[in-house]
């Protein structure tokens, strides 16, 4: 039953992708498009299987960078959201700034960070942290302020301490909201890692792309893009699974 439903939702987009690849493949041979402008899917697959060994090292480097940045960014985001929630004066002064600063394209800061912190791993992690921080912090704060009034009154009248209200009501209540922020952060972190590597690195998928760009190896760039998309999808799926497990109960919103 469940498998059948899953299959029913998977096959239409799958067919679409296969069709797209077929058209792509046909177009490159019919119109005789040069390989350095647009390689055919079969060229890309050949390149991927041939050069897999060299790419593995770069993929691992990017993965490590991304995961460290994602963890630090999400952690900082939660920490800041929780502290602002508990210190109202801090919140009223900083929250508008946080919302405003979301309009700064964090990536634009990357060159500056390279100048300040050199070409090591630190500026790259800072970039990813910044990219992940905002969606998590904003979603968490938003979730915390939406705590159900009647439940809060219940907890207070029952004599619950601030810590108990936080643990037993506010955090679980905000969890769906927090997780949607984390999901956004997860996909951002992949992008953040690649862009940080573009700007200055000696390994990683981003570095590999830059290298191939200068020798017009479009096929290799396509292989790199495929890897990035795969990592991104995997991160998203992982968080979605985590969400499914943590939010086993029906979320409040669906009640209406």
């Amino acid at each position, binding site marked *: 039953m469940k498998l059948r439903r899953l299959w029913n939702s998977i096959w239409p987009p799958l067919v679409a992708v296969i069709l797209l690849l077929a058209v792509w493949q046909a177009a490159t041979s019919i119109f005789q498009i040069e390989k350095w402008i647009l390689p055919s899917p079969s060229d890309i697959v050949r390149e991927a299987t041939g050069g897999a060994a060299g790419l593995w090292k770069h993929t691992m480097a990017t993965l490590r960078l991304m995961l460290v940045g994602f963890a630090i960014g999400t952690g900082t985001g939660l920490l800041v959201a929780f502290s602002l929630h508990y210190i109202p004066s801090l919140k009223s002064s900083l929250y508008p700034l946080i919302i405003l600063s979301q309009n700064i394209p964090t990536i634009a800061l990357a060159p500056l960070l390279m100048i300040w912190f050199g070409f090591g791993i630190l500026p790259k992690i800072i970039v990813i942290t910044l990219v992940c921080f905002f969606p998590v912090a904003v979603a968490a704060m938003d979730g915390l302020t939406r705590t159900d009034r*009647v439940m809060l*009154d219940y907890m207070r*009248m*029952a004599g619950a301490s601030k810590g108990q209200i936080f643990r037993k009501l506010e955090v679980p209540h905000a969890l769906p909201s927090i997780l949607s922020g984390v999901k956004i952060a997860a996909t951002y972190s992949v992008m953040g890692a690649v862009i940080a590597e573009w700007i200055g690195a000696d390994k990683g998928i981003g570095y590999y792309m830059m290298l191939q760009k200068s020798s017009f190896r479009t096929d290799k760039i396509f292989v790199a893009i495929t890897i990035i998309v795969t990592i991104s999808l995997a991160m998203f799926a992982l968080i979605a699974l985590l969400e499914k497990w943590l*939010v*086993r109960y*029906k979320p*409040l919103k669906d009640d209406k």
Partner: protein
Amino acid sequence: MMNTEKSASVSGTDIAALEIQGISLAFRKRRQQLPVLNDISLTVPAGKFVSIIGPSGCGKSTLFHVIGGLLEPDQGVVRMGGREVTGQRGLISYVPQKPALFPWRNTLDNVLLAREISGDANEAARAEAREWLVRAGLGGFEKSYPHMLSGGMQQRASFLRGLLAPQEVICLDEPFSSLDELTRSDMQRWLLDLWETSRRSVLLITHSVEEALLLSDTIYLFSGRPASVLHRADVPFARPRRESVIEEPGFLELKREISARMKEEQSKKPI
């Protein structure tokens, strides 16, 4: 037959489980004042069932928030067991108007919430809670989340959460108002049975005269906003009380009398 003194006479013999005296409160919005409670005094003797009836929006829930320590009254005191406790939290067990079960907790964990807060949700408490769930017709639903329960079942779970709380006094805020007629009378019978066996001190807010007469030992009739105590009526029917009491002539007469007073009060309301 009916005691209709203007104000509550505090019985001198035993110490009241809950006593509030001269409570007044006004909400302030910018420059404006909205008086909500006006010199309210009432008493819940230990092991008695006391009801409050009053027009919608007169300030009944606000009174519960004062008793529960959420709001500081402008005047007056709250006493429990003879001790002044105005503004202190955690001393009553509160059953809110909407069930307000936590959606991420299963029924058993929801029912144990008050115990957890007071720090004694041990194995014995869990066993007791399971027993009560069976008695409340919720056996087999221990692991279910609130959205899987019907409205009446949620309400019963909310009751049990209040009942299993360690506090002696239970405050019920219109617990039946969101239920349909049939479920409602089921729940009243259930609450009556349950109370007859446990004999906790209860303060109940309701809109229904019949409900108040069926369940209570004493009824306080509130005026429109700002709420004050219009009348205090002792309900004479013997305990343990059966549901059939609602067909007795004495019951009907009392019901008519209180309903008439309520109508009169409601007709004063400016529209």
